[in-house]
């Protein structure tokens, strides 16, 4: 037990004193979080720009509630020239141009942004229907009671935080395992430890425990910063993210072991780990959603451990899924870890 603790403390000190690994484990992914969080928050839900040509009495006589909704949705500029207004829409300077022809509201809109187009049509339809109904003088028979549910398409920070956290953990777990295995083999420290009375399992356990601790610190920092600075909202069973992250750490450590077993130098091992992790991060949706990716790519990504970590983390951290949503990803990650570790053990050679 003292052997386990001594080795764990030695690894922690070595990690904390290594500026490069600290940077790549914490600072680098956090830079991405700040960057992505900042960009996407700025771009989220802008108003629809509307050019009103001449007088549109429908808009001028809105009841209070509708007025509020109208102002929230549209940013209005006025124009006298219908042709010029439509030209503005065509150029993309405005989203919709509206004019009255008799009792008809004519809206020229662009399909460039389908969401905005749909919102424009729907909202304008609702205003016209409302005005028609008011003009008829009878009270409405039906009314809409809108209840908000968690959307599959998440606010940027909700999506970015779990993905970048997964990437950060993948990096530090794989790099740590690769550098330790290769470096300790090269310096003969592994041999030296073999000749001490400390059992091999204590040496392995020390490395695993330190890597898991680093992953949990990464999680605390990511979620903490997301909550405090970027309006991240965690849903009910977010705590299931902890065991899920531990399972993910095992999977990426096994990749690092594989890199460390194959590579001839410590730099080579870290580079090889990077070669595994960086493409995987892109293909697993760490940086942007895979929704728009072609089906074959989405199918391929299911072979990658990070994809399952990311999916599971999204489910329990921000999508409001129950704790059981993490079970299947955890099993996949642990299975991956077991298989890859076995392969690494088979490929491991004491001598270069």
């Amino acid at each position: 037990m003292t052997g386990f603790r001594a080795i764990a403390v030695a690894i922690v000190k070595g990690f904390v004193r290594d500026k490069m690994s600290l940077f790549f484990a914490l600072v680098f992914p956090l830079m991405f979080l700040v960057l992505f969080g900042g960009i996407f928050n700025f771009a989220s839900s802008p108003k629809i720009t509307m050019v009103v040509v001449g007088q549109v009495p429908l808009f001028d006589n809105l009841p209070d509630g509708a007025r509020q909704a109208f102002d929230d949705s549209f940013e209005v500029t006025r124009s006298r020239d219908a042709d010029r207004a439509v030209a503005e829409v065509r150029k993309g300077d405005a989203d919709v141009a509206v004019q009255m022809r008799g009792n008809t509201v004519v809206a020229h809109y662009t399909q460039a942004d389908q969401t905005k187009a749909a919102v424009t049509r729907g909202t304008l339809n609702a205003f016209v229907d409302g005005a028609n109904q008011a003009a008829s003088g009878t009270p409405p028979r039906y009314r809409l009671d809108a209840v908000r549910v968690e959307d599959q398409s998440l606010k940027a920070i909700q999506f970015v935080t779990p993905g970048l956290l997964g990437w950060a953990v993948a990096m530090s777990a794989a790099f740590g395992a690769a550098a330790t295995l290769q470096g300790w083999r090269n310096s003969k420290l592994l041999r030296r430890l073999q000749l001490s009375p400390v059992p091999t399992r204590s040496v392995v356990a020390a490395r695993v425990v330190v890597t898991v601790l680093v992953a949990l610190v990464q999680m605390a920092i990511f979620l903490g910063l997301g909550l405090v600075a970027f309006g991240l909202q965690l849903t009910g069973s977010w705590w299931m993210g902890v065991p899920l992250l531990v399972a993910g750490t095992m999977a990426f450590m096994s990749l690092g072991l594989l890199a460390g077993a194959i590579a001839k130098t410590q730099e080579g091992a870290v580079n090889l780990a990077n070669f595994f992790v960086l493409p995987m991060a892109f293909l697993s949706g760490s940086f942007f959603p895979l929704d728009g990716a072609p089906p074959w790519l989405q199918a391929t990504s299911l072979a990658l451990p990070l994809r399952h970590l990311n999916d599971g983390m999204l489910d329990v951290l921000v999508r409001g899924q129950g704790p059981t949503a993490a079970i299947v990803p955890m099993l996949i990650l642990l299975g991956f870890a077991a298989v890859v570790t076995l392969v690494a053990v088979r490929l491991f050679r004491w001598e270069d």
Partner: protein
Amino acid sequence: MSSGNGGPAISVRGLRKAYGDLAAVDDVSFDVATGEFFGILGPNGAGKTTTLEMVEGLRRPDAGDVHLLGEPTWPRNPRLLPRIGVQLQASAFFERLTAREQIHTFAALYGVPPGQADDWLERVGLTDKAGSRTEALSGGQKQRLAIACALVHEPEVVFLDEPTAALDPQARRNLWDLLRSLNEAGRTVVLTTHYMDEAEALCDRVAIMDHGKVLQLDSPSALVRGLDAPVRIFVSPHLVTADDARAVAGVDAVTDDGTSTVLSTRSPSAVLTRLAELNALEGLQVKAATLEDVFLDLTGREYRA
């Protein structure tokens, strides 16, 4: 300090290890007595390290067996490990730890209190470097730290794999004093080296290895004596010409190496007496045969470390 059964501290029988077609260790046998300072000497690639690592129990022999303190070393024998201390060829340290943290870590692996570790740091003269990271230590300091880490748990048998390799002569001499003191404390010490003078200066007995085989095994003086090589006496040609030299009784051969007249003899005391009578002692040098000559005699080629 005893092996507990009165037998030798180390007993090696018929040890073999091959890598592909290359026989790295080829039928090696030897015993090391308790308290002995034992050297394995040979050029690089002779099989010294492979032999040592099989004796330590790090490597599985293809054939043969090793008993260390009366117990087999393979497979890994956890009861034996606290009784042996090992310094490996490379500097096997944890990354980015200070000298003190390194030895405290190794001490903890053996359940040794930190105070005892600090004592060892002082014994190898590294107290003032205790706060320096190992990466910043000189080669000699690293070796001394590695030796301290190997000895922190007071083992009965110590293995040192080329502890003075890549050190400058001054640092080598300093380390010799430390190595002697380890043996004088009653420990069995096994050392590999490719330095002839080191083996001569330190070891009670030396096994000379080449191409995976032990060519000869004895004390350095017995090895040299067994060679029956002549002593060479170098004198100034101004004092003694080659013809003068040939007239000296007991001289077997005379050569001129360009700067000295060289007299080869098997009765050096008679020859030196005669040279003193000739008043030819100024600048005189006597070179006895060394292990290098033994190696040359055994292999028919010059020794190249």
